[in-house]
C-alpha cells in the first residue's frame, strides 16, 4: 500500500531525482499495417500466453492458499478460432477474431479495424494493439495484469461478444 506522503511542490519532486528517469531506446511505433490480422506481440515483450503459472502446488502453511492451477473459463469455451461480427461506426469497421485454447482466450486478432481517416489511422496504430491486452490478460509470464488507458468501444466489445457466443455454443 502506498504510504501517505507530505505535500511537496513539484519542483522539489523533480529535484529529488530518484523519481525522474528518461525512457531509453524509445522506439517510434510501427506504422499501421494493411487491413490484415495484427500479429502477436514480439517474444521479448510476451512469453507464454498464460497469465497463470501452471502445475505448481501452493506453498504450505499460508492461509488462504491460492491455487495456481489454470481452470477453464466459466461458460466452457471451446478451443478454436472464432470470428466476431463486424460492427461499424464513424471510425470504420471493426471485427475481432478470438483464438481460444484450454478454455481461455489466447489471442485476439483484428480482422478489420478503422484506418481510413487520419484520426482513425492514429487510433489504429496506437490504441487497437493496446486494446488486445485487455482480453489477453497480459501475455508476459511475469505480469499478471496491465494498467493502461484503452480504446473504449462498444463495437470492440460487441465483436468480442459475438465471437465468444460462437465459442460457447
Amino acid at each position, binding site marked *: 500500500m*502506498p504510504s501517505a506522503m507530505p505535500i511537496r511542490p*513539484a519542483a522539489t519532486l523533480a529535484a529529488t531525482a530518484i523519481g525522474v528517469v528518461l525512457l531509453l531506446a524509445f522506439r517510434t511505433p510501427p506504422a499501421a499495417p494493411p487491413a490484415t490480422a495484427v500479429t502477436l*506481440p514480439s517474444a521479448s515483450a510476451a512469453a507464454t500466453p498464460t497469465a497463470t503459472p501452471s502445475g505448481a502446488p501452493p506453498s504450505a502453511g499460508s492461509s488462504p492458499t491460492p491455487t495456481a492451477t489454470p481452470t477453464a473459463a466459466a461458460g466452457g469455451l471451446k478451443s478454436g478460432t472464432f470470428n466476431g461480427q463486424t460492427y461499424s461506426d464513424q471510425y470504420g469497421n471493426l471485427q475481432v477474431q478470438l483464438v481460444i485454447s484450454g478454455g481461455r482466450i489466447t489471442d485476439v486478432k483484428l480482422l478489420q479495424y478503422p484506418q481510413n481517416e487520419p484520426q482513425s489511422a492514429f487510433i489504429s496504430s496506437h490504441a487497437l494493439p493496446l486494446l488486445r491486452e485487455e482480453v489477453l490478460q497480459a501475455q508476459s509470464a511475469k505480469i*499478471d*495484469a*496491465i494498467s493502461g488507458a484503452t480504446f473504449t468501444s462498444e463495437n470492440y466489445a460487441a465483436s468480442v461478444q459475438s465471437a465468444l457466443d460462437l465459442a460457447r455454443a
Partner: protein
Amino acid sequence: MVRAEPVMGTVVSLDIRDQGVPGAAVDAAVAWFHEVDATFSTYRPESEISRISRGELSRSDGSAEVQEVLGLCAEVTRRSGGCFDVQLGGRLDPSGLVKGWSVQRAAEMLQASGARNFFIGAGGDIVTRGRPAGGQRWRVGIRHPEIGDRVAAVLEAGDLAVATSGAYERGEHIVDPRTGRAPAGLLSMTVAGPSLTYADAFATAAFVMGEPGVAWVAGIDGYAALAITSDRRVVWTPGMAGLLAGSAPAPR
C-alpha cells in the same frame, strides 16, 4: 477461475486464484457490470444517465447508485479544482469514475463471497487482492504509451487499486473541463491507492492537470502517481517508489 466479459464498452477480466469460490459469485459480479452498463452507459439512450442528461429524469429521482456516483464525482470535482467534471459540453458523463467504482464494488462482492486472492481488470483499471500464488505478489504492468505490447513499469502489489488515464484513449479524448480542449503535457498518468473509485477519477483529473498532477496526487493521503510526460520522462511520487518492482521502470 477466469472470466473475460465484454461489457461497458470494454472487456472485464476476473481472475480468481482461490479454490472453492462459488461460480454463482462470479456470475453475480458479471451481472453487476451489466447492471452498471444499463444504468450509466452514455452509449445507451435509455440509461438513467442519458435520461438525466436529457432532462427527462431529475438527479434526485435517480437510483441510489446514480446518486452515489454523482456525489462521488462532485467530491472529486471539488478536490481537483474542476479538472474532473461530469458536465462536459452540456452532456452528463461520469465515465471517468463509474468504471473504477464498479470494479471496486465487484471486488467487495467477491470478498463477501469468500474470495481472498484475485484481480479484476476493466479497461486498464485494476483491483488486486491477496496473492496470485503462494509467496508471490501480483505484478501489474503500466502500459507503455507508445509501444503497444510493452510495459513502461511494473508494480508489485497485494491489495491495491491501479488506474491509468492516457492520451491514447479513443475518439472522445480526455478533455479539460475548464477549457474544453485536450490537455497537453502527459502521455499517461497512473494512480495507485486503496480504492479504484478514487484512483480512476484521480487519474483522469491528474492527467488533465499535466505534470503538476503528480504533486497533486502526492498530496492525497494514501495515493501515489506515476506519469509519463510528452517528452518521455517518467515522474513518480515517493509513495509510488515503494510499489515499483526493482528500483526503476524498465528502460524500454
